[in-house]
């Protein structure tokens, strides 16, 4: 009897839910999926910018902070967007694990939706087969360019921090191998160091603390002309601080962007006129680095990659839906990317899938205390 009453209530609820719902719509919508700011501010703000620009046309949802464990939620968020018949394109940045599964599920009911991914975490070949278009910084190229930049900045050694979970990602593992090769070619000693996994049970603080302790040790051992690099986002702040304190070289973050790591590490003051103003932020970082004696040893890309990727993806999605371009048109894609970035970009396809739309991008670097801001 009691069970019956509860059962009845559940049914009543589901029926009432049907009654409650009902949506009016513009011509079409684009869904954006990003993490929270604590996972990375760039992509979140990119989505906010698009929301501000296009208003109701954009539906912005979030994947969980501990996306590694909560795949189901990521999938639900993506399929949730696809459930809206007006949604014609979905942008996922970063494309965390679960995205491929979600796309497959959506395809079964909504084959018309196009998926544009930024920074996919899953196997590139798998992603290339599933998504309509993917962007990733060109890890293999960066394997070469970062080491070259380090050399240019005066590095004699190259230190690469990572941990098992990241080295279980084929692209990152491959990049490390390429870096090693390139370093050897340039006569630089390549050092691979293991750090604790920030997704492990002692979390981000444990990983960051390790970096703070380990960098002085390494600098003492190998000397100041050592370039520091880490595959993990949360390690960038301690890495930058340690590099500044010890006088080491920091050629590029894992995800190249002026807003990634630098503002927090430098304790940058964000005044009202600086908000979202990339050139102003770059200049402020430059001033801070120079002031702290890091001139000519720190560099990054002039654009926040994930920030601009969201914008580029949305524009590409719009133009594709409206029939103004083809996703496989590399030049058209590049044009929109450069428009969003307002700096020149290099773009190529994933070598393993020359006929897929998995694009790899690289940008030039700016060196603080050397270039003009």
């Amino acid at each position, binding site marked *: 009897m009691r069970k019956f009453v509860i059962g009845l209530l559940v049914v009543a609820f589901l029926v009432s839910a049907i009654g409650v719902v009902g949506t009016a719509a513009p011509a079409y919508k684009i869904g954006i999926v990003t993490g*929270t*700011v*604590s996972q990375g*501010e*760039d992509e*979140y*703000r990119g989505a*906010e910018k698009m929301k501000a620009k296009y208003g109701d046309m954009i539906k912005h949802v979030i994947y969980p*902070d*501990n996306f590694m464990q909560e795949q189901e939620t990521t999938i639900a968020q993506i399929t949730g967007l696809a459930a809206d018949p007006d949604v014609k394109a979905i942008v996922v940045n970063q494309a965390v694990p679960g995205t491929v599964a979600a796309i497959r599920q959506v395809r079964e009911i909504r084959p018309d939706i196009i998926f544009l991914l930024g920074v996919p975490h899953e196997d590139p070949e798998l992603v290339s087969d599933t998504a309509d278009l993917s962007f990733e910084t060109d890890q293999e190229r960066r394997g070469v360019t970062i080491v070259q930049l380090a050399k240019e900045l005066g590095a004699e050694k190259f230190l690469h921090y990572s*941990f*098992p979970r990241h080295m279980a990602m084929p692209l990152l593992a491959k990049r490390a191998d390429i870096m090693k090769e390139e370093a050897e070619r340039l006569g630089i000693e390549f050092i691979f*160091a*293991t*750090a*604790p*996994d920030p997704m*492990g*049970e*002692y*979390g*981000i*603080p*444990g990983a*960051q*603390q*390790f970096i*703070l*302790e*380990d960098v002085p*040790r390494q600098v*003492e051992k190998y000397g100041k002309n050592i370039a520091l690099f880490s595959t993990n986002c*949360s390690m960038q*702040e*301690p890495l930058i*601080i340690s590099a500044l304190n010890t006088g080491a070289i920091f050629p590029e973050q894992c995800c190249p962007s002026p*807003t990634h790591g630098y*503002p*927090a*590490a*430098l*304790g*940058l*003051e*964000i*005044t*009202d006129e*600086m*908000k*979202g103003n990339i050139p102003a*932020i770059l200049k402020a970082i430059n001033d801070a680095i120079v002031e702290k004696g890091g001139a000519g040893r720190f560099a990054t890309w002039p654009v*926040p990659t994930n*920030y601009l990727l969201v914008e580029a993806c949305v524009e590409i999605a719009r133009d594709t839906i409206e029939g103004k371009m083809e996703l496989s048109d590399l030049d058209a894609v590049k044009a929109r990317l450069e428009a969003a970035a307002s700096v020149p970009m290099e773009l190529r396809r994933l070598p393993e899938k020359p006929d897929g739309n998995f694009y790899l991008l690289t940008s030039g670097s700016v060196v603080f205390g050397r270039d003009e801001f």
Partner: protein
Amino acid sequence: MTDKLKQTVEHIGIPRLMIAGFLAVIFVTAYITGMSVPQLLSDSLVRVGMNGILVLAMVPTISCGVGLNFGLPLGVLCGLVGGLISMERGFVGFPGFFAAIAFAVPLAVVVGYLYSVLLESVKGQEMMVGTYVGFSSVAVMCIFWLMAPFRNPELIWAIGGKGLRSTLTLGNYYGKVLNNFAVFEIFGIKISGGLIGFFLLFCLLVYLFFRTKLGIAMLTAGANPVFAKSAGIDVRRMKSVGIIASTVLAAIGIIVYAQSYGFLQLYMAPLMMAFPAIAAILIGGASLQRATILNVIIGTVLFQTLLTTALPVTSRVIQGDISEVARLIISNGMILYALTRSTGGK
């Protein structure tokens, strides 16, 4: 005399002997591979100093009979709020550090009291409920960090210009104030008198507390609630006091941790804060019913030294990084060992 000897052996215990042995192997390896042993020891001491008070926060709850404080994130969050207010107000250096504590402690007292009221109503499930209360309060605070009316331009996000950054640099405020205070060197080992002294000071304070009338009442309530009742002690109140004390220590602990670390970590960072502290005190030989300051010191030293040295040393010797996984297995294995060993507790 033999009794004493037996007692000492029992005090040290097999797990501690094992870890100490493992550490010895690590240091020998470090020496052979040409790593700077004094440097490793200095780093370990910093870790001990920065984590010690968080471990110490376990003592009051164990002593008053509530068990391990899985709700430690509550106190940590109070500490973070205190630390933030101090930054927002622009306090710098030692005043900033003490202002952070001054803001955090009253908050921790209130939160600790409310937490104790909750735990009182879920007697027998304290550890489970504590774990989840800790988790969910972290999520609530995530919303707070995003919405909180902090205006200091050094604290807010770069592009959005609102909400608190996930990592706040303390360098310009009270970063390392303790670490850089009264630093001296013995045999090449750099020791921060400020940091270690502060930790030992708190050990002493807690030790003295358990020698006061109130502290003894709390110990009694934890050791045997019926005895305590018959001695005119209000057992419920003692539990309250113990939980409040633990929360306050956690709040102070995270501020010490943060100043040493150089950052305030917001958002999901406090989620798992309780686990290393719990592992440390259990490794130190505490049980679910009884914990002493000595357990805290031994546990913190062993556990943090293990964490600090195992990774850099082993990654020199073996390619790959089995040490990261080994650490996972050892620390959880220790907690498991403690849970399956301590008898009599219901």
